[in-house]
């Protein structure tokens, strides 16, 4: 039995090592610049791709958010992860966006943010700090996301 336990912990260790072995990716400069430019605003940073079904669902919501909170120092920035720009363009024809789109075909920004799934979103406060990370987009989640955004904006105006 002891042997089994030992091998078990060995495996856990192996998994751990593998995880740590990856080099820390760095944020592409062009994107840090974007973050710098938008300091002072609450940012909803969204990662999407044309083939991702829930991403399609999130577009009208992000449009609405951008419209609804546009005067409250709020900004939706989305990062497209399609390898081919044509696919993103076609998606955008069907699902128009009224927010900024950054193209990250090689996933450099995505790697930095260590995405767990698609879509992924991050809420960044006015100091430029990521305050929460989310995976997926559902009715339940969008209510939660909006609440977080609203709270952050509230906090901001109270400061």
């Amino acid at each position, binding site marked *: 039995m002891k042997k089994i336990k030992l091998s078990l912990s060995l495996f856990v260790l192996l998994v751990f090592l593998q995880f740590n072995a990856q080099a820390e990716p760095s944020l592409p400069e062009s994107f840090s610049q974007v973050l710098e430019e938008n300091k002072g605003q609450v940012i909803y940073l969204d990662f999407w791709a044309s083939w991702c079904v829930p991403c399609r*669902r999130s577009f009208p919501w992000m449009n609405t958010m951008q419209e609804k909170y546009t005067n409250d120092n709020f900004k939706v920035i989305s990062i497209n992860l399609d390898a081919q720009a044509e696919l993103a363009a076609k998606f955008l024809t069907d*699902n128009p966006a*009224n927010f*900024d789109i950054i193209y990250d*075909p090689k996933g450099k920004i995505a790697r930095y943010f260590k995405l767990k799934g698609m879509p992924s979103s991050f809420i960044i406060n006015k100091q430029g700090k990521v305050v929460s990370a989310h995976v997926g987009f559902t009715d*339940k989640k969008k209510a939660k996301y909006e609440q977080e955004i609203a709270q952050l904006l509230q906090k901001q105006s109270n400061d």
Partner: protein
Amino acid sequence: MQLIETTEQKQKQKTKPNLKGLLTTATCALLGTQAHAEVNTSDDKWRFDTAIMHYNEADRVTATEAIIAANKTYGNDEVLSLKLTIDALTGASANGAVAQPDAQTFTRPSGNGQYIVEGGETPLDNTFKDTRVQLTGQWTQPLSDVFTISAGGNFSKEYDYMSISGNTNLTRDFNQKNTTLSAGIAYAYDVIEPEGGIPKPFAEMVIAGFGSDEFDQAFADSRLTGDDSKATVDLLVGLTQVINRNMIVQMNYSYSSVRGYLTDPFKVLSVVDVNGYAQSYLHESRPDTRSKHAFYAQSKYHFGHSMLDTSYRYMTDDWEIDSHTFDVRYRVLFASGHYLEPHLRFYSQSAAEFYQPFLQQDDVLPMYASADYRIGELDTYTLGLQYGMPMDSGNSLSMRLEYYHQAPKSDGSASFGVLNDVELYEELDALIAQVTYSF
């Protein structure tokens, strides 16, 4: 609003900017999104797959099956799938008796009629006619970011058969959804109520004196009850693994245990004398339990303009049937969205321990026996071709044509006398044509 791009993208833009999509984004910001409101809600609609399939065996069974499957994804990633299947089957099915040099007379399983099979021909009961209606529902929903649960039910009814089943399945994702483990259980309860009742095991088919009271009495004596049932428990554990950007594999182990009436009430065995002449026909008898283990593996590889789908299944059961199924589909994708998919399937099974093509008059009656070629040694192959094309607004149409060939094999028992002159293991050919429309 400025448009931000990574440097590589910008370079790409210079050579060939993707104006249309980017322009749409810009315009949307200018003119507002109201105008597009109706376009955006296109997601949570019902999706339908409809198919009609025609199955035609040369001189035997003809079946037509129609399916309407509906699918809807809800706002919290729940999926509801409903499916209605209707099939109609007519034609002739081998009754298990061996061919003879002379004509043979059989009583129909219902006791309401008789049929004569010409000399040299494999005896087929040509009165099969059945219509089946099946309703299936499945609900799938995420429990958390990694767990998904699914539960479903199935009800199917035909004239002399009813099946009801339920299943539940739990999956868990690992490694950013690259690995998925699943475990499920299903329970099915089937009732068979053949017209004319359930025959007693090894009861002799009553033939003589058709129409007389004696016949009716003898027929009634050969029957046990009006109906019988069986219960099936299935367990399934599976692993799905993404290998790389182009490849995914799935591996399943499943265990199935059936208990109850597993005999085919319509099948008989010929009892032959030393010269191979049929003396009588006994209703078959099978064990009342069967447990199966199956190992299934499938892999899909996408080459960019084509996709290779291969699968293999190994099944073994305590009736001593082992089978190997090998299936390959190669889909060639055209730029227009059309595709062509050749399909090849090989199947080979060994015989059940109690399978025998006939009984011999002087032999001691075994505990179980069946002459149903479908549990005998058997090789089959399928050759198919599917053609699919996209239609307007995301709809699609596909057609497929398949040729199915069955080659039953001798179980090794030596034939003798007149049996040497007849075909004991008749091969079977079938054509399958199907049209599918999805909208």
